[in-house]
């Protein structure tokens, strides 16, 4: 389509030569509010790309599903160098096996925007999933060669919500079609936010079993934190913040054995 050609990236500044095509741009998901989501699409580097599946990658937050994470330091074809002056190839890029679509979502994250500022104050799971479904339907119109292609969703962290919620929306949307254009086959999530209660119990257990907190903190957190109440008690907050502020130390909680960023 014409817009597909306009979205074609000739080359990114400081990029090494590559064999695969890449595209980026905006898809409007709500005209009245002026909400548009930014995507970056890197086709498969192995041939035949037209036989490879389509994978949508979402990061978490909520509010951090930007191209800073998945695209730039995890599964994308490029990594950014220290000074931000150039990018270099990622040997284990997932676009070796699939056509990877990165989405900055919801509006307000990264380059994705809304012309209605109140949208930034009432975002949530439901509208994020709905906008993502609309994005996909309209993106497929722009890239019709990907209609009916095996499609998977992948993500991590709070995308443990985004991914299954979008999968459910697609599943429900497809019920109205005998030959759905979004050919959803499955999803994969990592370190995924799954269940508030069990996640919390498991998190505190990890902190104790990995000797990050004292027995005393462990016992008082389990005593005062109910984990399924809307609002946590003051004693629970006190126990949690003591453990995190006075017992963890200056570690990178996202990777407890590697140096923290000073």
């Amino acid at each position, binding site marked *: 389509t014409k817009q597909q050609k306009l979205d074609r990236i000739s080359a990114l500044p400081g990029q090494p030569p590559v064999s695969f095509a890449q595209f980026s741009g905006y898809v409007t998901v709500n005209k009245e509010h002026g909400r548009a989501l930014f995507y970056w699409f890197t086709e498969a580097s192995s041939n035949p790309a037209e036989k490879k599946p389509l994978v949508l990658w979402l990061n978490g937050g909520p509010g951090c599903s930007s191209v800073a994470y998945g695209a730039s330091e995890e599964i994308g074809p490029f990594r950014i160098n220290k000074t931000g002056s150039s990018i270099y190839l990622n040997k284990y890029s997932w676009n070796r096996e699939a056509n990877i679509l990165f989405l900055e979502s919801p509006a307000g994250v*990264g380059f994705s925007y809304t012309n209605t500022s109140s949208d930034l104050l009432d*975002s949530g799971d439901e509208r994020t999933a709905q906008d993502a479904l609309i994005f996909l339907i309209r993106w497929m119109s722009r890239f019709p060669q990907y209609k009916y292609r095996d499609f998977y969703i992948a993500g991590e962290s709070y995308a443990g919500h985004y991914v299954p919620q979008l999968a459910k929306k697609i599943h429900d949307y497809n019920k109205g079609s005998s030959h759905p254009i979004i050919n959803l086959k499955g999803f994969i999530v990592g370190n995924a936010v799954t269940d508030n209660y*069990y996640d919390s119990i498991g998190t505190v257990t990890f902190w104790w079993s990995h000797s990050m907190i004292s027995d005393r903190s462990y016992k008082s957190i389990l005593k005062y934190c109910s984990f399924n109440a809307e609002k946590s008690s003051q004693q629970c907050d006190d126990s949690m913040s003591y453990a995190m502020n006075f017992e963890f130390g200056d570690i990178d909680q996202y*990777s407890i054995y590697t140096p923290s960023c000073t």
Partner: protein
Amino acid sequence: CTENYAEKYYNRPDVQKALHANITGILYKWTACSDVLIKNWNDSQVSMLPTYKELIAAGLRIWVFSGDTDSVVPVTATRFSLNHLNLTVKTRWYPWYSGNQVGGWTEVYDGLTFATVRGAGHEVPLFQPKRAFILFQSFLAGKELPKS
């Protein structure tokens, strides 16, 4: 500190132009996360387990993995949650391999595959790119993770 590299790169006008981003052309402070959204998040599903049950019943291929050095959404959190799906074990717990090293551990249930990635933090492909890639290849192929 890799996140800082992105803050530098994506705020460059030439990069935004090449990406067809920020089409308004105003000086744009691109950030990796939106604090406004995080602080004002409106609705959040308390548990995804009912959604998992529905999508397992719909026959989707579902994989859940966990980097085992993350303490923010740690492997024990995921195991406690998945445990409450009460799934039937199809392939019992075993170490999967990447090269001649244990890449992690995995157990295959009816409807869902769980796998850990050894030595990886929250962003698994950042800390263990090769193991993450093997995980992804196995997922796409619909095959169990390599046993050697």
